[in-house]
């Protein structure tokens, strides 16, 4: 085996990591920091689930409980889910997948990690100084005139981290435009790249609106006067419009990259080209576009006009079409494939199943009348956790496994990985499926006490959450173990077709040893092994 220098090698001083411009090292920096925030956010929700184990408010005070779910939301949304796949896997893989030596703006890439860290510092300050209790939605006038918690620090953290998202998005878009290697036409891009491209576009177009909304909210809190203040004839619903103009597309920021990961993994482990590649790419773009026009479905009972509600409801049904296409196409990709159940595939199939359920229940919430009863109950909580946790987090962890050999040069222990994947799937369903029923029964969200008749389902949910916790902690151990003890990985352990597998594992500092690869056909040129196939 020839020894190729890898991006991990060389001088191992801390400075070489903190001042690196190598997209792969920056991806690792992100990986480490989002993992930290993930577990802080998870700890917060562990307290919440512990409290909800019984109907009485016996573990936490109401104030602490409110801060716990607020911190959970803020950290998980902005410091974990949004950067998760784009800033780690995206950062690492996009140059490799399109045959480039780095992102278009390597220094900007490092800067965006520092901005992320700064935003995280603000938020951690808000947490340690006593917490914030507005929920992640910062609804006015509660956030402006009524909350006594650290709203400024938390909003500042979210504001700052937004710039990190914007810079990452900008970098990815420019990279995909300008640094594709020879022969890498737009319709030869892997779907992961398509997904990240669309995600980046959303980041660029939605995040600034959130930033300005937070500025308006904070000024209102600071000066005691503002446009969201009903006492002045302002409109609190305007805040909701501006907020959801960002925060609904933000859901697609979280799910599109996950769809990208699933597409890569499912084709690879069914040894089949993706079914309907072009349709899949168009579906991604359609989701990104229509996803911007549906935000009002968060406001069907808010006092929004009935007519606007109808427009938003219809558009919400429309955005479900491309999502449905994707699920069908993944399923069809399995047809006449040669299916291997390696851990990444289990994660990816788990993603498809959970996304399917999350998506179908989303239709309930898009239907105007049904939403009236279900909104602001546990039905909504369950729905978006199926999408964001069952969907995005499953896919993210699956992606980490799939590219782990490429990132670290080591193989992870397959048995434990499969075990964790299955545990995650079952733990997840046990945690969140009862919440659908709770929602239909009318249990409102964000309560630390509840009526005793809801207790059985809450106990089930809390029990599931503890399984889920084990499933999330397990990979820390076995992946950590594999860093030192894992089998060394070859360049292409999965026999996959992407350009990232054409270079050594882990890749050299400039990604490809000497020349950049050239591409002469589309991605996913898989064939099921004919020797296995023929009858």
């Amino acid at each position, binding site marked *: *085996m*020839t020894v190729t220098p890898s991006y991990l090698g060389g001088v191992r001083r801390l400075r070489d990591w903190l001042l690196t411009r190598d997209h792969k090292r920056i991806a690792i920096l992100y990986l480490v920091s989002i993992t930290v925030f993930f577990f802080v956010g998870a700890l917060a929700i562990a307290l919440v689930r512990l409290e909800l184990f019984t109907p009485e408010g016996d573990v936490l005070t109401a104030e602490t409980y409110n801060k716990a779910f607020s911190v959970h939301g803020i950290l998980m949304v902005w410091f974990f889910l949004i950067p998760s796949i784009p800033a780690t896997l995206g950062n690492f893989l996009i140059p490799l997948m399109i045959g480039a*030596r780095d992102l*278009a*703006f390597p220094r900007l890439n490092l800067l965006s990690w520092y901005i992320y860290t700064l935003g995280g510092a603000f938020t951690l300050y808000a947490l340690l100084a006593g917490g914030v209790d507005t929920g992640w939605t910062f609804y006015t006038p509660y956030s402006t005139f009524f909350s006594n918690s650290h709203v400024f620090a938390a909003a500042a953290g979210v504001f700052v981290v937004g710039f990190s998202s*914007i810079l990452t998005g*900008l*970098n990815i*878009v*420019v990279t995909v*435009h*300008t*640094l594709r*290697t*020879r022969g890498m036409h737009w319709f030869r891009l892997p779907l992961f790249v398509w997904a990240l491209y669309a995600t980046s576009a959303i980041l*660029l*177009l*939605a*995040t*600034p*609106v959130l*930033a*300005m*909304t937070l*500025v*308006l909210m904070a*000024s209102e809190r*600071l*000066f*005691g*006067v*503002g*446009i969201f203040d009903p006492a*002045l*004839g*302002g*409109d609190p619903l*305007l805040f909701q419009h*501006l907020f959801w*103009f960002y925060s609904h597309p933000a859901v697609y920021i979280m799910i599109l990259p996950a769809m990208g990961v699933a597409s890569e993994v499912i084709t690879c482990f069914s040894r089949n080209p993706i079914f309907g590649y072009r349709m899949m790419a168009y579906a991604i773009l359609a989701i990104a576009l229509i996803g911007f026009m549906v935000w009002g479905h968060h406001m069907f009972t808010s006092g929004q006009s009935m007519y606007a509600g109808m427009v938003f409801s219809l558009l919400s049904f429309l955005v479900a079409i491309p999502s449905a296409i994707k699920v069908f196409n993944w399923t069809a990709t399995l047809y006449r494939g040669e299916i291997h159940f390696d851990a990444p595939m289990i994660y990816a199939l788990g993603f498809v199943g959970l996304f399917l359920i999350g998506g179908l229940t989303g239709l309930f919430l898009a239907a105007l009348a049904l939403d009236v009863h279900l909104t602001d109950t546990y039905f909504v909580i369950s729905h978006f956790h199926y999408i964001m946790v069952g969907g995005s987090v499953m896919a993210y962890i699956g992606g980490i496994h799939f590219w782990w050999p490429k990132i670290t040069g080591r193989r992870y222990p397959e048995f434990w990985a499969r075990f964790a994947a299955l545990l995650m799937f079952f733990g997840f369903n046990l945690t969140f499926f009862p919440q659908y029923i709770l929602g239909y029964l009318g249990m409102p969200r964000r309560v630390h006490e509840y009526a005793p008749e809801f207790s059985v389902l809450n106990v089930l949910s809390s029990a599931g959450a503890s399984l889920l916790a084990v499933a999330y902690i397990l990979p820390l151990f076995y992946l950590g173990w594999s860093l030192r003890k894992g089998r060394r990985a*070859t*360049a*292409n352990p999965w*026999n996959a*077709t992407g*350009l990232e*597998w*054409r270079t*050594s594992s882990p890749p050299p500092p400039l990604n490809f040893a*000497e*020349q*950049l*690869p*050239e*591409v*002469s*056909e589309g991605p996913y*040129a898989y064939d099921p092994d004919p020797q296995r196939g023929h009858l």
Partner: protein
Amino acid sequence: MKDPTPTTRIRNVATSESEVRDPLRRQEHAAALGMWLFLATETLFVGALFAAYLLVRITHPQGFILGSRETDIVLGTLNTAVLLTSSLTMALAVDRQRVDMTRAASRWLMITAVLGLIFLGIKGLEYTLDWRHGLVPGLHFEPVGGQARGMELFFFLYFMMTGVHALHLFLGIGLVGAFAAMLQRGRLGAGNPAPIENLGLYWHFVDVVWIFLFPLLYLVHRT
């Protein structure tokens, strides 16, 4: 190393990246693309304010008319002229840099920065007058006549919008000054117009924002 990948699919080519495309051209393209993306982001950043303005104005039409009448149209118009002129000088600087006349480019940049400072000076004067007239919501707001609430919202938005604009301009002036100095010292010399062009794009964008702010804040209804 045994490599199981089917090598027929993707072949390595002997040409290096630089031979594929001119790297300098590609860098310029990337920079322009990045700048325009940034400006699209900025459009939505200030755009959220414009949207808020529109929606609040619909509910308080009278307050906005009366509020707008309290702004200083003479200073506002003067400032608009100053800023439009600064865009001209910035465009001339970019034009000079394109033909490698770095000295001239640097001079035009200096003039641009000075015009920017004049704009901020006049804006500061306006703010002072607004303070004296008690038009600063939350801190010193003593409006005359009716429609106090609508006017307060108008002035809240007025300060948010002009404030965000002034902040952008302030950053722009710093950058323009820095680039002028770099050109003076011979760094960023001939044959490298891209950085100045991108600087120009930013400057003009700030100008375009003002072009819309001006009628919305100063010219609502003067009669």
